[in-house]
């Protein structure tokens, strides 16, 4: 019912083999008619639909599941949830391999493939388990004290050795073949957790008509109600859950998201959640993503994430077979798995005893119950004894026996004597920690609650409340009551008329608990953080060495830094430090839990944005023609611009570009320049506005004329350049460079809205409306004559250099014509509505045929601007002033404009500053490269000798050799001087001569022609 994705056709129902010897004969929420074959380390095993990998492994008697991080100690399954530190496997294989996957969270599916990790050659025989013998050396932080001699050996020997031994699983070694997607959701009430508190909250909020989203990381809703034998109003837990879920599903504004982990709480009611859409099947269904990242915006949230049980800290507490008591009950009640034939219980709380009752109810026997509290109520003792248990009140488990799995425990009784008890499973019950992770994501620290001996939420993020166990209310009755009440209150806060349901009747329970933070004088290493192999002795060492603040403790010992983020270990570490420093636990501090709650696949965050879809791709109006005509493209920001158009027989790009340049310089060429930004500026104060944003004067610009425009940043450096054309008295069009178009628009809006709001200016981007093409070359006028509609006079007299006009083309289509030239040739830019861009391009190509027209791309465009000495992106790089670019002469003197004052700072007018000039190789056969630095001939390379650098280079077809632009100290005074262009990263060292930057037609006669 809860699957959002369609189920695959099921394999035929078949008889199950006898392998599942730890499976109970009946009971549990698994579907015994649907067997699932899977493999673990190559061995084929069988479980059921509804199992997790962990429950299926336990059903098959597999207890050794992994090896620990540092000591490679054998490890089994500790928990039944997302807090699992030990049972990490590599799930799937090849490109789908997922390392460090918690077996307790992996849903079993047909053909599931799991491999143990961090062991060699095999899980049972692991060479690096020798580390365990060296554990006296490998204490916390030992590596800070050694591996220092000789220094060179760190990278060569020590570090590679450590790196190979460290890490857990192996990541996939190929691109992820599955897809991910994002989705946005908005709701009134977000309920985090689908246990009794969460379901109650969702019901009372949902019934009011509020928009409710309920998320739960499990694939079944119900939480602990699926794991315990409880009664609500006469219904069993699972029955009550089914009823609640059915009602929620019937409410149109309630959205249930199982298999969805709420991983992060962000500012202002924003939440991140990841839905594992297809992780429970071998391969995602067609069109289904593997996972979906939800960005949820909620007005209110009810945190009902439950609690996590605490392990005991005693010798050998990491042995496979030692489990949390709640997990033992989960496996038994939910999955029909009794993890051992001779289970024992080590408890410090009343609820631990439920384990005994549950095992007995399933017909199992219990080897022993060790309760650290001296007084055990008689009925509990009787129940345990009826199940065959030896009961040790006031006792402590101090050690475990067995190698790869538990075979017995050593118990110290209340008189100080020790006894050995044979058992194959040990359930630990040491109280519960509310899940306070999510409420601390916004830097709020939890507070200590003496009643439950644990941390509970402190000040919660705005709009969030905590219900049930997550708030420290550990009984079922409290969970139902608080959930229902807080769900209703949340809906009411959103304007709905909501009522809490009456409090249901539940069976009685006791949460009495006396925590046992650690067992004194343990036999063997007593682990605090299982995954990172941090033992109680490591905490003692950290204390001894001064790492007493909780953050220092964490960092020095790595406690809480493993993939489980210390869900089962943080409090134990704190409690030991508290004991050592003689402080109460809350005085030692709390760790601030960081998002995500559990690890989230990187692919899920990226969603659609990978490969070619990493960022959008913008196409120019002539794109279709370019595709048809073998254009080679160039990335310019998001734009895909045609770079050059190779013809048959041309063997390299330079040959093509040279041909394109020569054609433009001798005949005519056509280039798509639509990528420039185009900003329509109108209004009474439009000219005043342009005067303030541009550094050069515009007062004399007449209607029908264009002018070069230079924009500075307020700090005096050049922001961008372009043109301003005056179409009517109060109507202008400004262009901006391709790279800076968006930034310039933002800057102009800033000036208009914030700096000078009194100016009446209307501004809008028309960049996309107009396809704009440069028609350049001596025959450009001839070509355009055949394009513009009759009646418009293109003659030099009627439409001179820097003319601008609104015209029609193609028989009445509105267009704009500008006589501007980037190439230095007689040239025009013609703009037509973008839908006609394709037609215009084809028409111009056809009209140009008799004149030998060719299309040219961004490369030829760049060559020609370098030949002309025009600055572009490589020169306008945010580090140059107008003076640096030899544009100082055009700066206005009689008006205020952005950047006016700051450009006059002493360092910026220093005559020693590098200035833009041209460079040509002394030996014309030598190639120049941009990025080379200039040195005096004969000078030793050094920073002090550095005189500037080459910004742009091109092979000039017009001159037949390479030419360059560059910034060099006092360049304007040094024409004719020779320097070295030094380029050691490419092995270049070329003697060049400083010259005028305008290599072609320095007088600029051609474009005026």
């Amino acid at each position, binding site marked *: 019912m809860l699957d959002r994705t369609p189920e695959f056709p099921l394999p035929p129902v078949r008889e199950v083999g006898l392998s599942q010897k730890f499976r109970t004969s009946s009971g549990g929420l698994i579907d015994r008619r649907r067997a699932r074959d899977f493999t673990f380390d190559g061995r084929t095993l069988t479980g059921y639909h509804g199992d997790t990998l962990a429950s299926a492994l336990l059903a098959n008697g597999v207890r050794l599941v992994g090896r620990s991080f540092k000591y490679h100690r054998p490890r089994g399954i500790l928990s039944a949830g997302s807090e699992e530190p030990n049972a990490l496997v590599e799930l799937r294989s090849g490109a789908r391999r997922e390392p460090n996957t918690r077996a307790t969270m992996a849903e079993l599916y047909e053909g599931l493939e799991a491999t143990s990790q961090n062991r060699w050659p095999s899980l049972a025989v692991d060479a690096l388990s020798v580390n365990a013998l060296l554990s006296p050396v490998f204490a916390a932080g030992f590596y800070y004290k050694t591996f220092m001699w000789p220094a060179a050996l760190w990278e060569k020997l020590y570090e590679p050795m450590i790196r190979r031994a460290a890490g857990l699983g192996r990541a996939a070694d190929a691109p992820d073949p599955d897809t991910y*997607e994002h989705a946005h959701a*908005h709701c009134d009430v977000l309920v985090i957790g689908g246990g009794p508190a969460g379901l109650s909250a969702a019901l009372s909020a949902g019934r009011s008509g509020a928009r409710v989203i309920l998320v739960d990381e499990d694939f079944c809703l119900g939480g602990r109600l699926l794991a315990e034998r409880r009664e609500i109003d006469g219904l069993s837990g699972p029955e009550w859950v089914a009823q609640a879920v059915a009602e929620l599903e019937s409410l149109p504004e309630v959205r249930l998201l199982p298999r969805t982990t709420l991983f992060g709480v962000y500012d202002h009611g924003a939440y991140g959640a990841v839905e594992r859409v297809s992780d429970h099947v071998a391969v995602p269904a067609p069109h289904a993503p593997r996972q979906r990242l939800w*960005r949820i915006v909620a007005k209110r949230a009810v945190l009902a994430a439950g609690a996590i049980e605490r392990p005991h800290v005693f010798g050998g507490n990491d042995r496979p077979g030692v489990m949390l008591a709640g997990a033992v009950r989960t496996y038994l009640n939910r999955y029909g798995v009794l993890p051992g034939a001779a289970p024992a219980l080590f408890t410090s709380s009343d609820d631990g005893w439920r384990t005994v009752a549950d095992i007995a109810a399933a017909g199992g026997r219990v080897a022993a119950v060790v309760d650290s509290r001296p007084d055990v109520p008689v009925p509990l003792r009787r129940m345990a004894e009826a199940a065959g248990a030896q009961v040790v009140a006031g006792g402590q488990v101090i050690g475990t026996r067995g190698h790869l799995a538990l075979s017995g425990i050593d118990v110290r009784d209340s008189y100080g004597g020790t006894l050995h008890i044979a058992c194959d499973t040990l359930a630990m019950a040491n109280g519960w920690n509310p899940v306070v992770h999510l409420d601390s994501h916004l830097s709020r620290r939890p507070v200590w609650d003496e009643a439950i001996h644990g941390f509970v939420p402190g000040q919660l993020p705005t709009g969030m409340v905590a219900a049930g166990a997550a708030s420290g209310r550990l009984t079922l009755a409290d969970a139902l009551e608080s959930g229902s009440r807080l769900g209703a209150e949340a809906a009411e806060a959103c304007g709905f008329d909501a009522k809490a349901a009456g409090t249901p009747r539940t069976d009685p329970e006791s949460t009495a608990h006396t925590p046992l933070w650690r067992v004194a004088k343990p036999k063997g290493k007593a682990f605090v953080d299982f995954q990172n192999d941090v033992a109680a002795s490591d905490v003692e060492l950290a204390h001894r060495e001064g790492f007493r603040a909780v953050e220092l403790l964490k960092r020095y010992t790595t406690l809480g830094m493993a993939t489980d983020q210390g869900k089962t270990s943080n409090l134990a570490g704190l409690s030991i430090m508290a004991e050592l420093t003689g402080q109460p636990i809350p005085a030692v501090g709390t760790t601030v839990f960081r998002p995500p709650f559990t690890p989230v696949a990187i692919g899920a965050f990226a969603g659609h944005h990978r490969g070619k*879809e990493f960022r*959008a791709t913008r196409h120019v109006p002539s794109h279709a023609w370019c595709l048809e005509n073998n254009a080679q493209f160039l990335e310019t920001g998001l734009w895909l611009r045609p770079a050059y158009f190779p013809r048959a027989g041309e063997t390299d790009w330079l040959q093509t570009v040279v041909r394109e340049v020569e054609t433009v310089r001798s005949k005519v060429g056509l280039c798509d320049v639509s990528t420039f930004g185009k900003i329509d500026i109108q209004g009474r104060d439009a000219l005043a506005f342009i005067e303030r944003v541009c550094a050069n004067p515009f007062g004399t610009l007449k209607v029908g004329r264009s002018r070069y425009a230079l924009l500075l940043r307020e700090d005096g450096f050049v922001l961008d350049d372009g043109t301003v054309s005056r179409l009517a008295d109060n109507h202008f069009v400004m262009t901006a460079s391709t790279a800076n178009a968006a930034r310039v628009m933002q800057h102009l809006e800033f000036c208009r809205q914030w700096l000078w709001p009194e100016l009446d200016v209307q*501004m*809008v981007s028309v960049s996309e409306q107009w396809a704009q093409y440069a028609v350049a070359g001596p025959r450009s006028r001839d070509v355009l004559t055949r394009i513009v509609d009759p009646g418009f006079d293109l003659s030099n007299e009627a439409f001179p250099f820097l003319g601008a006009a609104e015209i029609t083309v193609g028989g009445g289509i509105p267009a704009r014509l500008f006589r501007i030239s980037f190439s230095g040739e007689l040239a025009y830019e013609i703009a037509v509505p973008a839908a006609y861009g394709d037609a215009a391009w084809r028409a111009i190509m056809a009209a140009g045929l008799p004149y030998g027209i060719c299309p040219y791309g961004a490369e030829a465009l760049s060559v020609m601007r370098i030949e002309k000495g025009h600055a572009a992106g490589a020169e306008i790089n945010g580090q140059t002033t107008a003076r640096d670019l030899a544009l100082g002469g055009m700066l206005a003197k009689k008006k205020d404009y952005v950047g006016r004052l700051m450009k006059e700072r002493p360092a910026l007018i220093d005559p020693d500053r590098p200035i833009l000039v041209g460079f040509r190789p002394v030996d014309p056969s030598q190639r120049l490269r941009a990025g080379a630095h200039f040195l005096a001939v004969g000078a030793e390379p050094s920073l002090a000798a550095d005189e500037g650098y080459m910004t742009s280079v091109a092979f000039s077809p017009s001159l037949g050799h390479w030419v360059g632009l560059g910034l060099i100290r006092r360049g304007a005074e040094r024409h004719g001087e020779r320097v070295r262009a030094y380029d050691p990263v490419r092995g270049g060292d070329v003697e060049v001569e400083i010259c005028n930057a305008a290599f072609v037609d320095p007088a600029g006669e051609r474009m005026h022609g």
Partner: protein
Amino acid sequence: MAEHATLWRPRGAWDLYAHAGRHGRSEGPAGVTATPREGLALMSVTAVDGAEERLAAALRDRFGLSLPEPGGALFSGETGLIWSGPGQWLALAPTRGDLDGFGETLKGLAAVADQSDGRAVLRLSGPDARRVLEKGVSVDLHPRAFGPGHTAVTAVAHIGVQLWQRDDAPTYEIAVARSFAGSLWSWLEEAAAEFGCEVRVA
């Protein structure tokens, strides 16, 4: 320019990307239908400072529509006024040329700029249209928050878009800068695949 000569043919903004037919899931009825809207007339209308009331009156005369408030989109048949920013609206009409001379009409009241070719507009309709959009649009499109007559300027897959709702089918129209049409289409194809997408090209 009402009657463009027939020498040059306009090219649709979606031509290279949207291909008619069924995409994605093939079983059952398509959850969403995508229809490129080519040949619309679109003008941006930016009010002159202090002229908003007179502008509203002028537009009422011309369209019989009042000037929508921020976030509003008002339609009369296929002609509409859509808020697009503070003091700025989009005027939309079904056929290229329908808004010719608009600038003259509003002279002194607003700056008008033709955007008919600057935006590529797509109509998305069908029972799953909202679920498709939900994958990219961060704005709440739930009927309680957004419905016919609403517009939002926002982003989808890092691409700036403006969308407005036409009816309760629901039918949305989404406008994107023309050069981005291909990338928006890639996103849409992926987002709509699970529901089955019928592409109708006129």
